[in-house]
């Protein structure tokens, strides 16, 4: 075993470090960039500027084909870049879905001339993409979606509603899965498209989140036309294409949100318990140790995964564990940090609250991490079924025509 970079990796790491040092502030001691923070026009512009700079310097889309501005580099270089970027405070939150999920799906299914048109602008952050999957009828049960697409000449006409679409209000394009045939079992009647978010008939209504911000949306479709040329995969093959997207969701390297263990250690040094810094308290130490062991376990699990990838293995559902562990850890650390502050933990005024109010902010934003992108329960099902080989749930919806599947009042 070794953690040594090959000469090529070391050279790349040095380049990445040089680029970051010249262009971004170090994270330590700086204000956390809140992932779900409301994005005003200035924040959007900061994200776009950073992405363009990163792409122009050759650090975006590292593993992508050269003809789309990538470097065809090994996934290890991507990890190295991410490791280095972890130390810096860079604007995030606008391109993760487009670059992590939409573009890989496009590259798997779109026509060459479409790729020539869309991939580079996405990589430079000139165009923003969103993912229109979830509906009121179901997020976990994605295949329960009801938004209809009907063929009309060379177009498809879309009617229905999507929900929880992150960044739809800031997006230029989106990928969407819709029902093209309600008379066959649910997974067989779906088709997949990409579309222009400025198309006539699309109405976007931001949703007020419990964290106070408005980053996800309801998206209504009234007779929206999508040319058939923008179909990804065959008619009725939408489920298969969606799986490509969701597999990439699992791979998309999630930033470890703050506060993490280091933030809790710092807080525990400054906050007093019984006349001593909290870090001297046995109960506090015990929790810090447990979370540290989890964080490190995830870090080294990722190293194991990268080692397997560098030997040509494809990462499997094992990777569900990172999100499952991180989401609860974030929520628990946030809550525990506030407990240490006593009654003042309630205060969110940034000039008075400890640690730029990051614990307070995480308390309110962290519930979303346990739901979005596969809820805790769905991830446990995936681990049990796909990794451990448990039988799948007994289902009442699988082999019936979709329009005969039971639905609830909500």
């Amino acid at each position, binding site marked *: *075993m070794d953690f040594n970079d090959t000469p090529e990796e070391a050279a790349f790491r040095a380049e990445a470090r040089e680029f970051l040092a010249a262009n971004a502030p170090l994270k330590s001691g700086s204000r956390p960039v809140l992932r779900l923070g409301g994005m005003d026009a200035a924040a959007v512009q900061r994200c776009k500027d950073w992405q363009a700079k990163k792409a122009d310097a050759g650090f975006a889309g590292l593993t992508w084909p050269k003809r789309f501005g990538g470097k065809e580099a090994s996934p290890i270089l991507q990890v190295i870049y991410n490791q280095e970027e972890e130390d810096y405070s860079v604007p995030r939150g606008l391109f993760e879905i487009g670059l992590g999920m939409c573009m890989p799906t496009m590259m798997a299914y779109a026509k060459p001339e479409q790729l020539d048109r869309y991939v580079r602008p996405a990589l430079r952050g000139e165009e923003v993409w969103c993912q229109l999957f979830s509906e009121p009828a179901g997020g976990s049960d994605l295949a329960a979606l009801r938004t209809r697409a009907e063929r009309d000449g060379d177009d498809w006409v879309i009617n229905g509603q999507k929900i929880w679409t992150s960044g739809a209000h800031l997006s230029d394009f989106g990928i969407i899965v819709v029902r093209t045939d309600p008379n066959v079992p649910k997974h067989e009647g779906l088709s997949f498209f990409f579309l222009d978010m400025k198309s006539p008939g699309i109405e976007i209504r931001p949703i007020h989140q419990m964290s106070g911000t408005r980053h996800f949306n309801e998206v209504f479709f009234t007779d929206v036309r999508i040319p058939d040329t923008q179909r990804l995969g065959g008619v009725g093959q939408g489920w298969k294409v969606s799986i490509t997207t969701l597999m990439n969701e699992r791979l998309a390297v999630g930033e470890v949100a703050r506060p993490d263990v280091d933030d809790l250690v710092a807080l525990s040094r400054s906050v007093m318990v019984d006349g001593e810094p909290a870090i001297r308290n046995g109960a506090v130490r015990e929790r810090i140790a447990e979370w*540290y*062991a989890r964080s490190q376990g995830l870090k080294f*699990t990722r190293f194991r995964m*990268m080692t397997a990838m560098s030997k040509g293995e494809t990462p499997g559902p094992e990777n569900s564990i990172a999100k499952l562990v991180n989401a609860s850890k974030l929520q628990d650390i946030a809550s525990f940090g506030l407990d240490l502050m006593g009654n003042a933990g309630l205060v969110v005024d940034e000039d008075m609250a400890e640690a730029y109010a990051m614990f307070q902010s995480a308390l309110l934003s962290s519930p979303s991490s346990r739901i979005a992108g596969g809820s805790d329960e769905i991830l446990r099902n995936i681990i049990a079924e796909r990794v*451990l080989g*448990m039988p799948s*749930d007994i289902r009442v919806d699988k082999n019936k025509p979709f329009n005969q599947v039971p639905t609830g009042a909500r």
Partner: protein
Amino acid sequence: MNFDFSDDLKQLRDQARRFLSEQCTPEVVRRSLDEQEPYAADLWRAMADMGWIGAAIPEEYGGAGLGYEGLCVLAEELGRVVAPVPFASTAYLAAEAILAAGTEAQKRAWLPKLAEGSVIGGFALAEGTGNPSPNAIRARVSGGRLTGTKWPVADGNIADIAIVAARDESGEIALYLVQLAGVARRELKTLDPTRDQARFDLDGAAAEKLPQAVGWSVVQRVLDRAAILMAFEQVGGADASLQMARNYALERFAFGRPIGSFQAIKHKLADMYVALELARSNAYYGAWALSADAAELPLAAATARVSATEAFHLASKENIQTHGGIGFTWAVDCHLFYRRSKQLGLALGGAPFWKNRLVDLLETRNAA
């Protein structure tokens, strides 16, 4: 980066797994459980012949020179089968203590014997209730004679020599090699009868100092290194517990379906898997730290220890739970893992001790 065991070591792991599945069956473990024999002597001899005991002992001292990663691989396999052998006491503790603090002559005298399995080693630190602490060491050496009480000492009744922590005439803590023939020893009844545990009443036993490193720090050094190796045993035991629960969940039907189709069981198994994977990854980092003799070793050891203790405890208790009533019987093997999980979890000091140490090390690191 290459964060995995080499192909050679994976081959060693496969061979060890095959060998142990034949030679360390539950029947063998149960002979120790039922107190018919204190340890599996035949298995021990076979392990010695294959070079396992001296896996990490340098070849110049009669070891196999497989390195620490080799020893880690073997530890995981021994943990998987709850092996009733004095491996940890001999290979992780006694041999490591001699390597850490022994003179050249002491290494030449004892390491080859430990490696060939003709001498079983023990490590006598605790003096009754309480976690490892310099304040708890009262045993004393004066004029080369050691006096004090040590318990519990793993494998103490079957060991030929023990490395004993005691204070010298000036009160400084050091490690002493004691030949145990003639020392008053008593067998202790414990939670895990598959491992021997002793009480030593040392009354002026001849003791030879391991002089090359003294003070509590050498004790801690030995504990740290053993914690990583033991983490692999714990990972092996946790993995075996999860496999057992998984197999049972597929075979057992209730309410007309396999119990593994109930989410209550699925999610339990998923949680066991998650804890196991985190523990495995932390143990791998420990293996790297051992083989690279890295400065990060103490923190890596505490982290591996905390993670592995949690994973094995969770997996062994939920394995019983998954089995329902039958899991609570003597006849079914669930309790072998549950017992061993506690034995290993206490052996080098319990979870609170290691969590506290982890944070100590974090504080030192952050201050640097």
